[in-house]
């Protein structure tokens, strides 16, 4: 399935499985495979310990992302949510594009799964550079990991810089309103911001790719929001789900819903010209067009899905 090789970070602690007395060619291959992986893992460790790697201007560390940050997400993608993608060919293999998607699920797993889809299943193995809320970067650990994974603050200068650099840039314009909405409002798109993402695309001439994600709404169905407590700790919302906080840490396990991610037909912005970014009417119209496309696709995908779980 995935053509990215997974190099283990740690030397496997468990004993090698018992072997037949005589070495068959099959085993010799396993042996050399083990050797190769061990060598790869050790080389990675040494690179990390001596600081022998490079990050881009945003702090994106591809070495770390591919070997440490993405591997734990893959089983979630392949086995737990059994994500199916369509329309990946709409994402260009080179050059910038703006991915605009719906946001849901209390925890932004939808964004992470989109990143896995593009890295593992796009022929060019593209890295998704997300534009994240400023809350992310004020949090310890989360903020620095987000930077290392290539994400940056959702602001126009950064969006334009990424698009100009030819990166696949991801934005979730609903923000906290989308991700922290109650379960009863599932698959209803919230307000789509002020169209900042459209003006970034217009200024850089990058195509906008509307992405519709089905499945994320059901992973943590939010039945109530502890608003006062959330405000007290400085969070935008504090969800109550059927399992959280009732089951404690167990409640943090997402429900295994079936996911569909559709990458829609690109909306070209190059023809409008750079000056179009200063035309609020056009910006609003394009914003609406993207929003409508995603909403319609969501309904179509929902009709296709037989049940929430399969």
């Amino acid at each position, binding site marked *: 399935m995935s053509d990215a090789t997974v190099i283990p970070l740690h030397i496997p602690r468990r004993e090698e499985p*018992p072997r037949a007395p005589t070495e068959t060619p099959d085993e010799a291959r396993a042996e050399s495979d083990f050797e190769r992986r061990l060598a790869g893992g*050790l080389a990675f460790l040494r690179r990390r310990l001596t*600081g022998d790697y490079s990050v881009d201007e945003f702090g994106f560390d591809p070495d770390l992302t591919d070997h440490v940050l993405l591997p734990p997400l893959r089983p979630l993608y392949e086995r737990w949510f059994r994500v199916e993608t369509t329309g990946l060919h709409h994402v260009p293999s080179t050059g910038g594009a703006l991915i605009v998607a719906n946001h849901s699920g209390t925890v932004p797993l939808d964004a992470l799964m989109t990143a896995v889809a593009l890295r593992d299943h796009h022929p060019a193995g593209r890295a998704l550079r997300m534009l994240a809320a400023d809350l992310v970067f004020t949090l*310890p650990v989360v903020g620095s990991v987000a930077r290392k994974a290539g994400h940056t*603050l959702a602001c126009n200068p950064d969006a334009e810089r990424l698009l100009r650099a030819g990166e696949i840039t991801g934005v979730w314009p609903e923000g906290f309103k989308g991700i922290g909405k109650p379960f009863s409002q599932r698959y209803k798109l919230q307000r789509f911001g002020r169209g900042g993402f459209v003006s970034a695309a217009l200024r850089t001439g990058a195509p906008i790719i509307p992405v519709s994600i089905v499945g994320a709404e059901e992973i943590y169905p939010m039945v109530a929001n502890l608003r006062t407590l959330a405000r007290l700790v400085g969070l935008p919302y504090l969800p109550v789900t059927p399992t959280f906080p009732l089951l404690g840490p167990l409640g943090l396990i997402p429900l295994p819903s079936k996911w569909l991610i559709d990458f829609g037909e690109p909306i070209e912005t190059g023809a409008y010209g750079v000056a179009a970014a200063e035309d609020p009417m056009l910006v609003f119209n394009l914003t609406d067009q993207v929003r409508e496309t995603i909403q319609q696709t969501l309904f179509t995908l929902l009709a296709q899905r037989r049940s929430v779980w399969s």
Partner: protein
Amino acid sequence: MNMAPQVVLVTGVSRYLGARLARTLCDVPSIERVIGVDALPPSRELRASLGRTEFVRADIRNPLIGKVITTAAVDTVVHMNIRAAPHDSGGRSSMKEMNVIGTMQLLAACQKAETVRRLVVKSTTAVYGSSPRDPAMFTEAMEAGGAPAYGYAKDAMEIEGYVRGFARRRPDVTLSVLRFTNFIGPRIESVLTEYFALPVVPTVLGFDPRLQVLHEDDALEVLLRATLRELPGTVNVGADGVMLLSQAIRRAGRIGLPLPGITAGIVDRVVRRAGKVDYTAEQRRFLNHGRVVDTTRLKSEFGYRPRYSTLEAFDDFVRGRQLRPVVDPQRLAAVQERVLRLAVRSAARGVARV
């Protein structure tokens, strides 16, 4: 209009970069006189390296600078006497006086002197502040999210304000404001070089900022260009590329000590007392969130591409200081080799035994 400078006045000449600039200017044949000004006399070795620079020990409290400028008919002023660290400026209030009042005094003198044609100011990218809500890179047109309200950054902001005021009153003077990132290199002394020389480097737990530095040779080259040519405007001066703080610590072979943000105040005091490292609240903020600037203008309008990237500059610093790595990369490579051999051999033995 582009007149080559003949009489250059350099302030802050008792420090490494100022002294080096003065020394280099002495070698330019078209320059008749190089006058170095500082409130403190240069150290013996710096003094020996100053060449034909005429040193004037001037205090900001008397208007001596004005007299120097008019009598020597100075045409180019390079203002480098802006200090970042309180500990070698006799405390914060003295540092502020040196920085801000000193600049005002100098600008007042320049305004009166009709011979002055060019003013080069060494500023800092600290004017952009440092916060988690910053864009990934600052361009010259951007302003700090919240105006820096403390220390060096505040001084630099005020200095730039006064410099802009001067530019309005003397539009005939070509003004270059150079916003430098942190300097690093084998010889220069900066807050960062002191910080990375610590065997155990305190960091803020859970944060790993992006750092951008500038090699001392590149800094000198940019100052020289701005002094000798007509390069008006404000420009960010920093090396290409960034590194992460954790990465820098590892490359220097140091050991990082991540401490929770709450304990920072205590750590500051301990570190400050233990060595002469200037680990101020401002510094901590910088090491918490980092700062990276866009250097497109430096390359396009200024026509200068730094020779060292951030990583190269940092490696040159590590080599030049002969920092003895606590974690030795060569030994690590040997360990890697040994583990691999051992594992392969034991696996082979396992196969043979069964």
